[in-house]
């Protein structure tokens, strides 16, 4: 196959995949459809933040801000420019373009301080931009203040997933080019990169603009998916969750981000409908997990990890957990408290996060990618 053949082929696969996802979602019913749509949006968010955070190494933790800019500018476009209450394809496409451009401008503005600030300072400034934006929107009557803003609703899964595929393709192709190497070099060492002739300014701002444009387009699609958003949907928690997806998947690994985005988004959603459990059992499980993780960590550190060595220790951990679980039931405050798992999901989420960081701090994939090459490549014989 020649160059263009591969390109056209992959575009065809992406479109077919997006339509397939849309058909599957439609067949699974309204709730599942919405979840699959949101999952696609989270993939776009995680991969686009990975471009800023993981690939370029600019420590941005305010990604929800771009998402919000996209959503609100799409809503404003529908309400004030297009002035329509009903959905149409041109409106949707226009919204996506408007959302993307508005978020790209925001990304440019937020990217500029990154030229002077680095590390934690940049993190705080990006977080601060998000908060400022949220408060401004909360006080703007045209954008519905804290009550939220509505737009013509449309559930278009193929479009959402096409955007996700586009985002993945752009980031992946970027990494395969010389430009991508300049992005990586900025992450590894800014000073060395600029000494080698890399235009650090351009790379940093480009990362912010591209990443935020994708987040903005995702925001526009969210606005039309839900038909309604409020400023609270874009709080700091959302930024943290997206950042977590990036880190958990492995900073710099696109496939890692995709997998982590799907897992971390679906995990709390699946827990939402679970049964009510006694608090004592939750405490026992947490104690058990804590002890087990500590032991695995110790075994890994001592280079003596084997499942046989783990088994008796797991037994000890189980006994300790049961004892402590029952012990906590003796406390009057904890005795007999039943917890609906909808409340539990935001407890399990951080526990997964901490356990993951303790056991594998570089993320699931680290810097590696999973792709066809992983499976087609011959195993190298280890020495």
């Amino acid at each position, binding site marked *: 196959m020649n160059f263009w053949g591969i390109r056209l082929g992959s575009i065809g696969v992406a479109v077919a995949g997006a339509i397939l996802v849309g058909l599957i979602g439609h067949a699974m019913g309204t709730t599942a459809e919405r979840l699959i749509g949101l999952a696609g949006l989270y993939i776009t968010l995680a991969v686009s933040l990975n471009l800023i955070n993981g690939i370029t190494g600019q420590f941005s933790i305010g990604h929800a801000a771009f998402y919000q800019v996209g959503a609100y500018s799409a809503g404003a476009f529908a309400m004030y420019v297009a002035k329509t209450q009903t959905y149409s394809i041109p409106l949707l496409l226009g919204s996506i373009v408007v959302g993307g451009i508005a978020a790209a401008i925001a990304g440019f503005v937020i990217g500029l301080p990154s030229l002077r600030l680095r590390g934690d300072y940049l993190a705080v400034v990006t977080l601060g931009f998000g908060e400022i934006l949220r408060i401004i929107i909360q006080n*703007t009557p045209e954008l519905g203040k804290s009550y939220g803003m509505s737009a013509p609703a449309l559930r278009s899964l193929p479009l959402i997933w096409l955007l996700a595929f586009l985002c993945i393709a752009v980031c992946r192709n970027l990494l395969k080019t010389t430009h991508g190497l300049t992005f990586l070099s900025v992450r590894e060492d800014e000073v060395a990169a600029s000494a080698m002739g890399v235009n650090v300014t351009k790379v940093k701002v480009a990362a912010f603009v591209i990443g935020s444009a994708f987040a903005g387009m995702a925001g526009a699609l969210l606005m039309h998916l839900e038909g309604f958003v409020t400023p609270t949907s874009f709080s700091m928690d959302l930024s943290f969750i997206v950042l977590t997806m990036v880190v958990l998947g492995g900073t710099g690994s696109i496939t890692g981000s995709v997998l982590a985005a799907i897992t971390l988004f679906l995990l709390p959603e699946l827990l939402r409908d679970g049964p009510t459990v006694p608090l004592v059992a939750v405490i026992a499980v947490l104690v058990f997990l804590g002890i087990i993780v500590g032991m695995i960590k110790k075994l890994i550190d001592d280079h003596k990890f084997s499942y046989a060595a783990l088994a008796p220790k797991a037994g000890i951990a189980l006994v300790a957990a049961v004892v402590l679980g029952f012990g906590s039931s003796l406390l009057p405050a904890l005795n007999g408290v039943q917890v609906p798992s909808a409340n539990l999901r935001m407890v399990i989420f*951080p526990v997964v996060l*901490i356990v993951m960081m303790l056991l594998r701090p*570089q993320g699931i994939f680290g810097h590696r990618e999973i792709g066809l090459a992983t499976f087609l490549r011959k195993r190298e014989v280890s020495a």
Partner: protein
Amino acid sequence: MPFEPSILMAGLDWPALPQQLINGLMFGAIYALIALGYTMVYGVLRLINFAHGEVFMIGAYVALFLSWQMGFYQSPGGAAPAYATSALPIILMLVLSMVVCAGIGIAIERFAYRPMRNQPRIASLITAIGVSLLLQYGGALVLPVSPPRSIREEVNPYVGQASVDLIKPSAQQLSALDSATKLDKEMATKLADQVKREGVSSEFDLSAEGQKVRNARFDAADALRKAQEDAAKSRYTLAVPKGQLIMFITTVVLMMILRHLVLFTPVGRQMRAVAHDFDSAALMGINVDKIITITFVIGSALAGAGGMMCATFLGTSITTFLGVEWGIKAFVAAVLGGIGNIPGAVLGGLLIGLAENITVWAGFSQYQRAIAFVVLIAVLLFKPGGILGSAKVEKV
């Protein structure tokens, strides 16, 4: 919002400014107290301890539980115990909050941060976010949300105001005020009499005579309002709630103790050595683990004190998400002053407190939450290391 220049020019209540500045200082002191914890941990470990705000929240809860334990909750409306009016319960609450929070701080450091110490910094940051979320939502499962009636009235015997009259209204203004009050009362009685005499129940259904009295009553009320405004304009009082004054003094005392500890004791010297260079300090025989634990103890105890005072003297209603807002503002304060720099944290805290109160005073109270970040970004763009911090030159 349409821009109104009058807001910036004439609408400002200038005589109220000193009062707002004092309020700002009072709040800023609490921000500074929490910011010290951020800045100390960052200085030693180069880690943004996102769970610090949650330690603050736990301090507030300890104060709440202790106040219930001492019987302040069981007697709503009834007579508070005799010792409620003494300073003893407050000191007890303060000390216990600090002790419990110090313990929580040690646990967080030992089980969440120490295993991450040799990992990339983003891993410990994610762990910090995880611990923060765990304490917020895990706490929400177990801990009660404080009742609308906070612990303030019952535990805090210092509800009153300590006020100082800087300029008193003149005798002439006072007599005008007096006569206006008298006239107003007189007219109100006359009107009531009229209503009674005519045998109607409504003030709006009156004879021509009654109409005259009613108009006179409105005139009298107008005169009273004008006299009150005159008197208020010349009255120049600074009022500080006693509780906030205690808060401020406690904060200053704690900060001075901290300053002494860091500058003039062996532990402080070791702490500064670890902050300066981790590895060299270890090579010089300093027990780095111990010093980091002590740092967490001090920072968390200060956050606990802040939480206790916030719950007791400000009467904030306590939820497990209390730490998010206070924590983020205190963190902004720490960065503003130059993170890792102890005087910087105090300065940043005071600045944030002042900026917030000036925003409220200028009539933009809805933007109060945003102003901390606006100030931060404005300062960082001109001085990327914070006010007292120094921007580091990176070497290859």
